[in-house]
């Protein structure tokens, strides 16, 4: 029983020349006016043609939530699954069809509340899936409960006196799970989204991208401090591989470790640029240190925290199967016959 080809033996279409329009499905987009999801959708639809992959070879998978409606708007294959389980669905797809390109869309509730465990496991397995977590720090679809990423003290529908749970930081969780690619971007910064998604698409293995996303209806302005013209320079740290960690309107501030190994904000001019931390996506120590820079003490880092190479689960699994089948001479009949005797 050799490995069968599970997909029909059809001639694939030529991926060159695909347009954004072709990646747009015929379904009406059902997000609230002003929702940050629109901008992300537009960037993803724009990115797709550049990947050189035909539409039919792409699958978008999601869970449940406003964000998880995403697959309906992509004219590719897609599964809008159940709450929190998209990583497992995506793993199933890649396990049997490593030839497919799989993107996954989830929310802070879908991915970190009910789906936290599957997220941990898809990351540790390093399944070749691109994960976009739309983090609006709220449950949108169920109309405004606090989420695992809402800040402590958040007043929302189920926490009228303020939440008493500390939030999870998606980037820290991903790094804790051993993720090979971890990045953060923000809905309004379309150029940065585009670059980050491009980087994610190039990664072999799980690429985890947290996207801060404004929910104007239930958690408006949660990210204003980092998107507002007047404040963003002082509150956003755009990381670049190999470059010192600098921010501020003119890059006048930097991040360094103090004598006791704690991160501090320094004035670059007086402190000296050479003593700043230099970002290194391939060095876990750096990824970890920057992951812990949190608003309001620190500017919020955006960009790629970590990018490491490691064979993906689906590749290793399929290589194992391929290697085993290659040498195999056994038929199913022989397997059935094993240990048999004949009665005459």
């Amino acid at each position, binding site marked *: 029983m050799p490995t069968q080809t599970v997909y029909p033996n059809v*001639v694939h279409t030529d991926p060159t020349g695909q347009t954004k329009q072709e990646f747009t499905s015929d379904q009406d987009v059902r997000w609230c006016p002003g929702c940050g999801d629109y901008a992300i959708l537009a960037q993803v639809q724009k990115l797709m043609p550049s990947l050189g992959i035909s539409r039919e070879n792409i699958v978008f998978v999601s869970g449940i939530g406003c964000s998880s409606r995403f697959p309906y708007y992509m004219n590719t294959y897609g599964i809008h699954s159940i709450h929190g389980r998209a990583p497992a669905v995506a793993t199933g797809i890649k396990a049997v069809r490593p030839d497919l390109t799989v993107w996954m869309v989830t929310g802070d509730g879908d991915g970190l509340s009910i789906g936290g465990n599957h997220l941990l496991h898809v990351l540790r397995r390093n399944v070749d899936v691109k994960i976009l977590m739309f983090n609006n720090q709220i449950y949108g679809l169920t109309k405004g409960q606090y989420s695992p990423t809402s800040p402590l003290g958040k007043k929302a529908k189920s926490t009228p006196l303020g939440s008493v749970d500390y939030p999870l930081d998606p980037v820290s969780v991903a790094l804790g799970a051993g993720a090979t690619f971890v990045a953060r971007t923000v809905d309004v910064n379309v150029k940065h989204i585009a670059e980050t998604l491009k980087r994610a698409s190039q990664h072999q293995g799980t690429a985890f991208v947290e996207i801060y996303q404004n929910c104007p209806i239930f958690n408006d302005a949660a990210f204003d401090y980092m998107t507002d013209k007047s404040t963003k320079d002082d509150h956003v740290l755009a990381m670049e591989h190999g470059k010192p960690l600098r921010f501020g309107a003119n890059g006048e501030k930097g991040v360094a470790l103090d004598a006791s190994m704690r991160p501090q904000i320094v004035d670059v001019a007086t402190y000296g640029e050479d003593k700043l931390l230099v970002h290194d996506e391939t060095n876990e120590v750096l990824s970890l240190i920057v992951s812990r820079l949190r608003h309001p003490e620190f500017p919020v880092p955006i960009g790629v925290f970590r990018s490491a190479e490691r064979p993906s689960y689906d590749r290793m699994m399929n290589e194992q199967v391929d290697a085993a089948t290659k040498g195999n001479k056994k038929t199913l009949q022989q397997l059935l016959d094993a240990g048999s005797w004949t009665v005459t």
Partner: protein
Amino acid sequence: MVALRTRFLTTATMGTSAAGKPHEQVDSVAIRFAGDSGDGMQLVGTQFTSTTALAGNDLSTLPDFPAEIRAPAGSLAGVSGYQINFSSNAVFTSGDVLDVLVAMNPAALKRNLKDLKEGGILLVNSEAFNAKNLERAGYKENPLDSNIVGAYRLFKVDITGQTLAAVREFKLDHRAATRCRNFYALGIVYWLFSRNMDATISWIQRKFSDKTLSEANLAALKAGFNYGETTEMFDHAYEVRKAEIAPGKYRNISGNEGLALGLMAASELTGLNLFLGSYPITPASDVLHMLSNMKHMGVRTLQAEDEIAAVCACVGAAYSGALAATTTSGPGMALKAEAIGLAVMLELPMVVINVQRAGPSTGMPTKTEQADLLQAMFGRNGECPLPVLSARTPGDCFHAAIEAARIAVTYMTPVILLTDGYVANGAEPWPVPDVSKLPPIPVKFRTETEGFKPYLRDDNLARPWAIPGTPGLEHRVGGIEKENLTGNISYDGPNHEAMCRLRAEKVARVANSLPPTLVEGAQEGDLLVLGWGSTYGSIAGGIHRVQLRGHKVGHVQLQHLNPLPNDLEDIMKRFKRVMVPEMNLGQLSVLLRNRYPGQPIHSHTKIQGTPFRETEIAKAITSLLEAN
């Protein structure tokens, strides 16, 4: 199968063994090897089974694992057993009562003596009946010296001592030497049943890479055999003649093996890659283990992080064109409910196997039960119908897995297949099918773009299987109610009603693809015994017993529980009464009463973690008939 059967020691024809001692011919023997987990009872059990199968007997076996991983040596919790029932006639179950009990220590005696019939042979390792072991087993005094064992034919053998003597020449350390004693015991039993030891001898030679160990075990085996032949203890041996078995190729198969092989056969018959997403759980884990060992056959297995992930991975794999299967037991089944509902909504093929164990909750993981039928039927939110099947014997697991896959891909639906701990771990000789003669299961992925609609149905009401990689068929599926034909999200009321009824009708139509239901025994008459799953043997054996007394009793063992066969109502009407034995509190009865409101259903239940005895069924039948 319907041949006359007489029990051990009731029919006796005396002969003489090769070595001179007389041997007695008997029809049927049930024997149990029992000892500590570390005593290797499973091993000698399977050896005895192989030899017995080669000798041409019909047989059925059942291991009895301890519930604990490895309870303290000598404790009651640590007792491990292996039972085999073999006969020159048809064998239905692994045996109601024991003719022979081999007890390697006091705990084994205590746990198992209740199953030994009066006058049965009790072979004990007398050395193990020391103060420490007696205390561990909770015996105040040595039972071998009391009248506890008075009703049996007791044979006390210092198995440990004899073994040590037999292997002395190999200079093993004490522990290794002692561990040969299971083969010594096996040797005695081989002699007792006049068995040819060649198969076991060559197995030992193959198995032990360490030459010394191999020879020591061989020596122990032979010493045991010789002990039987030469001592005064046994005045004669027994012989169970070959059964009349249809000519052909046979092998031993356990239910879990049957499932694994059946799924692989379904993969071949459908031409689809097999994908198993599973999370370990007793008593289903072995299917995962076996299929994980089949990478060379192209099988992909994922040990998922939990049962939910396992079945969700199946959703992804099925959407992508694989033959997706997931295996679990009760608690895991509960966890899969939501995602199975998704598969029902997506109308994707999938085989979900529940190797049932005793519940509720964690229950008794190593014990068998049939109490997850209604969960399979109704354990999901909303109207969420799907086909439900069961398997009656270890060998039937093979065919049931194929049938489940057939229904899944033909009707584009998840299918639940229920087996249980009894059938999963039990084993029997099984006529090996010729793969080339199994009916193929045609599967066609949709490729034509013209007229494609994700929820446009064929005659079976199945929707097209259009998998990623197919240009022009890009489409999205999801758990929200879908518009008929297009599959788009729809909150329209009448559409929802239409879809609910369509999904139900699709499953109902599976019945049209079923062969006529087999009625064994009487085709009409006093009583129909209607069972499902692993009670097959107990019911067949039970009926066999009462039919001897002239009652007209028919037997239907359902493979398909949803939908029920179209001809079942007619069959039921041909009998005055219908009795439904189940290892639960009456779950199939609920379905029958709902489906056939007029029909009087007599539910007969037992829920003790162990199969029905044939005699229990016989008694229930008799009292029902006599209540007439």
